């Protein structure tokens, strides 16, 4: 459909011809789909949302169309505005999401520092081998196998020792947690 035909449909729609208005929107939809598809890349769902937002804006703002001007520049100006607006909104959402992550990380770090300090006090009361294993596995993050190699033990022995030391720690802290056994597994 040419610019002149589309404009004729628009003018008829402005005069109250609902069928012409429907034909205009139906003819614009694939053009808008192509416009947004080129610019949104691999996000067809978001592109279709923008097609609908733009069609809605074309409908709601059709009183702002200057009948002396060509139609398609008017339509594409709305499409461009909607595209930029969606970028702006998703950009802001991303920024907000990043802020949240930063906060979570900060909280976790603060907690971790506290926990480490408390753990240091408690660890000092455990037998030396248990201390060393707990430190290596739970704080330094070595795997069971690595810890076993470092201390010249079998993996099974490391597991048992860790289990015991965790029990001992629980007794020291006076807390029993049903999951604590599972937590020493890497």
């Amino acid at each position, binding site marked *: 459909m040419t610019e002149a035909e589309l404009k004729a449909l628009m003018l008829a729609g402005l005069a109250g011809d609902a069928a012409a208005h429907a034909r205009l929107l139906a003819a614009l939809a694939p053009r808008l789909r192509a416009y947004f598809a080129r610019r949104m890349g691999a996000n067809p769902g978001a592109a279709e949302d923008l097609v609908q937002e733009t069609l809605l804006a074309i409908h709601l703002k059709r009183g702002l169309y200057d009948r002396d*001007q060509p139609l398609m520049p008017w339509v594409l100006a709305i499409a461009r*505005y909607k595209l930029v607006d969606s970028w702006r909104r998703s950009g802001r959402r991303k920024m907000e999401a990043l802020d949240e992550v930063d906060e979570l990380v900060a909280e976790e770090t603060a907690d971790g520092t506290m926990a480490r300090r408390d753990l240091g006090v408690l660890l000092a009361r455990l037998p030396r081998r248990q201390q060393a294993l707990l430190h290596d596995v739970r704080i330094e993050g070595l795997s069971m196998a690595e810890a076993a190699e470092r201390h010249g033990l079998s993996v099974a022995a490391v597991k048992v020792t860790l289990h015991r030391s965790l029990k001992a720690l629980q007794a020291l802290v006076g807390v029993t947690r049903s999951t604590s056994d599972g937590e020493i597994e890497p």
Partner: protein
Amino acid sequence: MNTDELIAILARDARPVRDGLVQRRLATFTGAGLCASLLLLLAWLPPRPDLPQALHGTIFWAKGAYTLCFALVGARALERLARPDGRVPPGVPGLLAMAVALMAGAAVIGLARAAPDLRIALWMGDSAPVCSLRIVALAGPLLLMTLAATRSLAPTRLRTAGAAAGLLAGGLSASVYALHCPESAPAFIVCWYSLGMLSCAAIGALVGPAILRWR
């Protein structure tokens, strides 16, 4: 909802639309803002005591033509920029430049004819420190209304549209202020009136991108 359903719903809502929506909307809102600005002036500052005589002089009208020219330029630009595909119409910046050039020329002639020790007095008048600020203050209600009208339409160049809304508000506000202000030297007007009006445009440009967004 799929797009075909949306189109069907929108088509059912296709009532006839009258032409001239932009002009009507801008005129209504700006008219309301102008009334508010006049009321603000009446409540705040007395009209110049020589207003009846001034109405018969040319300087009052030259000053009014100058400030209304700013308003006209703002209105012409805003009428376009309130639409999605709107641009600053050609010739409009030139009109503004011509008005400023004319007033500046008159200012230079006035200053050249004055005795050297009176030139500062011509330029500063009796109210230079407050003039621009009062124009901006009187433009407050006007700017709110021109921005509200623009936002209710569909601008896409938000900063430029904000500046045009500010220029319209500033030009009308300066015209309102002229009912109070008896300053008549072109040197005063071209400096302090222009500064007030352009400040309004700057405020509009500053807030435009944030508050002219429509969905």
